[in-house]
């Protein structure tokens, strides 16, 4: 028995060793390679492509790839932004992912970890972003023959390869301009091509440097958008130098020409533009005027410049002060009472005890002056630029705190693809311009985002977060990020009002317009609602207007000025 017992113990030990070794070996050789941004550079507060390569030598691994960044902000405190991707890796397999991660401040590192099914970390990597942080939007370049890092225009250019081009327009948010040199656009995958065009339509700028490069640049998917219908590349003598020049029928604006030849053309596409240089200014020594012309151009409609918009919003704020009349009246009362007290005091032999009344008078005056009604509270608002990702989530790209006077309208410009959300934070403190503000969750700000693309109007509000109504191109894709339930939502599209019914909070919903019931403007409608529809109908015919009510159920029909209501109107669509 003793012999058998030893055998059994050895067998168990050997088995345990095999199991443990197997378990360790299963994940021991899992390697993570992570790269973020463009040419290794990232930008603060931008949806950033993060390329992850996993090389797995062990057994089958099922779990998830988690990207996270822990950030601390004055208003939100410490929070962690997380994005996870399910993974399934076979034995000795490797796979690449490009995840679009909403990066916050680059002073905080990006954590990447691979977890198995039970949540154990198999591999991890921390990306220190401080040294690769880029200020301002990117200018990137695609070229097979290399591209200079700095252009005569003063732009710093990051060369990228075809696989670095994002496959969703949201990831282009940090890119201002893309130069295309000697590069075949057909090597881009269809979803990359679509994303690139989408980005241009949203406000991006594509610059094609043609000339002799045109032989490789021809692409059917790009041709209809170019400012030139090319015919041939001709050798032309310009300022004594023979240069290959692309000639053809001009479809856009001539931004700059030389000796009668259009050299730089531009065409507005959506809210962005495509430039085409008929010469390759990198191959031919181009005059400085060409680079200068590249920095100009027709101002783009609805160009997103959030900093300008934020500054504009701030400058429109009204700092409320108690009125002069009020202070003067209170002062008059104070002096009057002081006079009466004096009159009484001088008739008493004991002066000093009577003076006890003076602090009382001062106290009453102070109490009157500093009443909250007179010292109107300043409200802080937050505005976020939100971007949608393919999985339906909406990310806030940036935010801003500011002070606003109640019911003070603001006029800001945003593009159609921008959702402007407004929230009331619950904390208080001193921030912008070191002014002290008081937060009153019962007060909201009338907000008008203008001119055409998006309108959000809050007539009045109760406390809590404002609902976020967000739409995307094509069919209506609606997501309400709010604890509030919106009643009687409606959509005005091409002159027809559709009934969307109640919108549940925190749920995304897709609508097919032709399947939605239509609403008619009838006399039975409450006056206020009819007026709002009338307002909506006054909007340009191509505009799409979305409206919804938030109120206690059942009482929306009679709007009482004494009650609090919330109306969100968002105008969307190209």
């Amino acid at each position, binding site marked *: 028995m003793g012999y058998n017992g030893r055998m059994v113990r050895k067998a168990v030990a050997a088995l345990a060793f095999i199991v443990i070794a197997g378990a360790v070996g299963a994940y021991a050789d899992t390697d993570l390679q992570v790269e973020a941004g463009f040419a290794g550079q990232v930008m603060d507060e931008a949806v950033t492509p993060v390329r992850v390569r996993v090389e797995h030598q062990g057994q089958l691994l099922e779990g998830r790839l988690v990207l996270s960044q822990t950030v601390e902000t004055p208003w939100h405190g410490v929070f962690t932004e997380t994005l996870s991707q399910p993974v399934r890796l076979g034995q000795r397999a490797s796979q690449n992912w490009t995840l679009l991660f909403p990066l916050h401040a680059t002073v905080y590192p990006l954590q990447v970890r691979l977890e198995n099914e039970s949540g154990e970390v198999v591999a991890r990597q921390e990306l220190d972003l401080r040294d690769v942080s880029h200020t301002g939007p990117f200018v990137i370049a695609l070229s097979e023959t290399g591209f200079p890092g700095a252009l005569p225009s003063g732009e710093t250019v990051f060369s990228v390869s075809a696989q670095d081009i994002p496959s969703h327009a949201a990831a282009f948010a940090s890119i201002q301009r893309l130069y295309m040199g000697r590069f075949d656009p057909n090597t881009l995958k269809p979803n990359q091509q679509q994303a690139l065009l989408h980005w241009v339509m949203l406000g991006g700028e594509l610059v094609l440097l043609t000339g002799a490069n045109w032989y490789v640049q021809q692409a059917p998917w790009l041709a209809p958008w170019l400012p030139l219908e090319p015919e041939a590349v001709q050798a032309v003598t310009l300022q004594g130098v023979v240069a290959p020049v692309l000639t053809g029928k001009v479809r856009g604006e001539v931004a700059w020409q030389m000796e009668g030849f259009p050299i730089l053309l531009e065409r507005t596409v959506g809210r962005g533009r495509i430039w085409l240089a008929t010469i390759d200014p990198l191959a031919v020594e181009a005059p400085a005027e060409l680079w200068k012309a590249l920095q100009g151009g027709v101002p783009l409609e609805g160009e997103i410049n959030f900093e300008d918009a934020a500054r504009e919003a701030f400058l429109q704020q009204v*700092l409320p002060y*108690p009125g002069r009349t009020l*202070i003067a009246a209170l002062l008059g009362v104070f*002096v009057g009472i*002081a006079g009466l007290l004096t009159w009484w*005091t001088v008739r008493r032999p004991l002066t000093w005890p009577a003076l006890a009344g003076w602090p009382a008078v001062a106290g009453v005056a102070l109490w009157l002056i500093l009443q909250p009604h007179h010292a109107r509270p300043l409200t802080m608002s937050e505005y976020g630029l939100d971007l949608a990702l393919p999985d339906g989530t909406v990310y806030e790209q940036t935010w801003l705190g500011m002070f606003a*006077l109640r019911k003070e309208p603001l006029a800001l410009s945003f593009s159609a693809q921008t959702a402007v959300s407004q929230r009331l934070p619950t904390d208080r403190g001193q921030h912008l311009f070191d002014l002290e503000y008081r937060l009153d969750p019962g007060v909201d700000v009338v907000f008008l985002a203008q001119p055409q693309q998006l309108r959000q109007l809050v007539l009045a509000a109760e406390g809590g977060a404002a609902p976020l109504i967000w739409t995307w191109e094509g069919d209506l894709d609606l997501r309400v990020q709010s604890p509030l339930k919106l009643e009687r939502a409606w959509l005005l599209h091409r002159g027809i009002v559709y009934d969307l019914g109640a919108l549940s909070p925190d749920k995304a919903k897709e609508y097919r317009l032709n399947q939605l019931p239509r609403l008619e403007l009838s006399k039975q409608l409450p006056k206020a609602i009819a007026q709002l529809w009338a307002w909506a109908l006054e909007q340009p015919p191509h505009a799409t207007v979305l409206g919804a009510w938030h109120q206690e159920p059942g009482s929306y029909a009679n709007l009482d000025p004494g009650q609090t209501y919330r109306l969100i109107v968002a105008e969307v669509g190209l």
Partner: protein
Amino acid sequence: MKRLVAVDSLFFSWSQSFLFLSGLVLVAVLPGSLPIRAAATTPSMAAFFPYFTSVLLCIYATNFGQVHGDPQRLWRLQYSKRLGPYLISLVLRVSLLLALTLPLWVVFFELFHLRWTAWLSLVYLWLQAQVWGGFGLWLSLTPYADITQFKIKYVLLIAYFGLTLFTPPFNPFFTLQVLLDPNSEIGASAVHLLLGLTGALGCMALTGFAAVRQWRKVDAL
């Protein structure tokens, strides 16, 4: 007694006029509810209130001192020739003058979102007022004619506010600016502030001493 009531009445009516005038200035410098864009380009008159009030306070405090040293020795009669209560009375009345305007200062501090150091400016103004109160007392006890006293008073006041501009630590406007400006660096100006406060204390002691000496001289007559 009738004269005493008359003097008391004078104090209170002066206090009221001081309150009224400084209140008027506060109302004048109050900012309007303008958009920040417009407010940024509209010059702020806020600084005028403390400057004006400090000048006015010095004038009124001097007057108080002068009334205290009334040639008819009313106040000395009231306090039975005891110096202590006599001076305390002056200090308290000058303090009351400033205390009356306390609501105005609170409104000023609140509306312009000033930091806690702003309250130190009141301490500084109190010291200033006491210096000038002592000076007024000394002046009234001198044998100069009323018109000469008037001239001396205003020449000295103008010289004080004007000439000290060349010696910033001793200039009340400079000290007030350091204490009231939310962007001023208190740490960097600490030596200047200390000099200013010490100067004010020194002047207070000097004028008090001069007044007491003069008192004894007059009393000996």
